[in-house]
């Protein structure tokens, strides 16, 4: 599925209106420039998935499901489990979606969400090699984008993080004779941290957090930053044509860090048993 383009005249009028609002410190939905929309997270929504979470970020709605299989490890990481993030824009998620395989937007989304989680070390993949070199856990985190109203990066990241953090997987052990078998126990994934993605957008000279679809249609540029719990940045992705000064970026990261701490509390509350 891919996103097609929209009307340009309407975009231009909307941008003017938005800029005049921003000049007064307002947004179209009355939020402050650095406010997030309400974040609503429901976990364990799909019984057949080992982990799952539905995230509503305003009217943006995504659902992540985690499936776990045993598989051969990748050649270059024989002693690590496998984590694969895949996203699909469901065709009903927006009137602007075109049929077909994931386009560059869906692929970028999946890869950026994957990097934030992978680089934070959230899931300790080195603990997921059941029989190193031969059988490891392969974790598929599939995301269905249900309704698009902007800021898919953050909503998708929160959904995958929540689904992984609440997943329950079968435990395996290696027999004396080297065969892999289920112990019958159900265990949690080895989770070490809760990474939080924060996305900002620049419209004219204004910077806003958590842009809606209406805002994204007119933004100049975007920056997504993922924060780990140990005071580090673990992934960044600039998006859209448009540019940032180095100073803007340095300042923005400071602001975003604070916001990440707020959101992390919401996520943690939602995933606690």
């Amino acid at each position, binding site marked *: 599925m891919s996103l097609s383009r929209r009307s340009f005249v309407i975009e231009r009028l909307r941008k003017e209106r938005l800029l005049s609002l921003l000049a007064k410190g307002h947004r179209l939905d009355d939020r402050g420039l650095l406010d997030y929309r309400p974040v609503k997270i429901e976990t364990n*929504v*799909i*019984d*057949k*998935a080992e982990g*799952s979470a539905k995230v509503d970020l305003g*009217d943006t*709605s995504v*659902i992540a*499901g*985690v*499936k776990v*299989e045993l598989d051969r490890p990748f050649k270059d990481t024989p002693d690590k489990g496998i984590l694969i993030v*895949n996203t*699909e824009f*469901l*065709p*009903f*998620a*927006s*009137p602007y979606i075109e*049929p077909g*395989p994931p386009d560059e937007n869906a692929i970028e989304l999946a890869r950026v969400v994957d990097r934030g989680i992978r680089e934070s070390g959230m899931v300790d993949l080195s603990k997921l090699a059941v029989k190193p070199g031969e059988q490891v856990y392969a974790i*598929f985190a*599939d995301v*269905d984008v*249900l*309704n*698009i*109203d902007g800021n898919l990066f953050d909503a998708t990241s929160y959904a995958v993080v929540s689904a992984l953090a609440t997943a329950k997987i079968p435990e395996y052990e290696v027999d004396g004779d080297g065969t892999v078998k289920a112990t019958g126990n159900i265990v949690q994934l080895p989770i070490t941290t809760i990474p939080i993605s924060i996305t900002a957008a620049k419209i004219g000279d204004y910077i806003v957090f958590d842009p809606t679809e209406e805002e994204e249609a007119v933004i100049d540029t975007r920056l997504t930053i993922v924060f780990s719990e140990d005071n580090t940045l673990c992934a960044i992705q600039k998006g859209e044509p448009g540019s940032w000064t180095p100073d803007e970026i340095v300042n923005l990261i400071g602001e975003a860090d604070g916001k990440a701490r707020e959101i992390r509390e919401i996520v943690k509350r939602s995933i606690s048993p």
Partner: protein
Amino acid sequence: MGKLVDEQGRRVDGRGLNEMRPVKIEVGVLKNADGSAYIEHGKNKIIVAVYGPKEVHPRHLALPDRMFIRCRYHMSPFSVQERKSPQPSRREIELSKVIREALEAAIMIEEYPRTALDIFIEVLESDGGSRGASITAASVALANAGIPMRDMVASCAVGKIDGHIVLDLNDQEDKEGEVDLPVAYMPNLNRITLLQMDGKLLHEEFDRALDLAVHGCEQIYGIQRSALQDYYFKQDR
């Protein structure tokens, strides 16, 4: 293979032979779609959304005398026991076709010539009878989108397990049973718009099964109506 029906006529999930699983329908669950519905039928969890009537792209697909209806039935990778590839399988392509035909029978397609209507079905979690639950929910989503229809289409399956004709097979019954017979039905017009079968039935068994299916669809129709009434009257919009 365990026994699917015990001496008391109870099924693996405790139901009687003619008993339906719990069904719950929510209307208008997606913001962007023109109409939508969410159904839980047993463990099936399905979202259906409708876009249209709208322009046809590419234009040469437009039909001069009626609406052009497209339908996609799709299962999420996490909807089944073993992860499913997101690419549409041959089964999904066939079901998209028969579901579309089951719904088209009810839609007043002649009222919107040269337009298109998209019906998107996403199975988030799958249990026995997902095609029926999809049709049931799609019919509600069409109503929610304001598409003029001759009748609602209600759908459920019947089947044969351990020699008994029963209503509304769950996953285990579907896999281990002898016959699956999904039906879609327009209750006010007394007309069947989907009928498939696999497995072996004597003629007399088929007649009983079809009759039971029609009764099941009538129950489903009641649930569809309640869901729409709840949405339009309780929410007052």
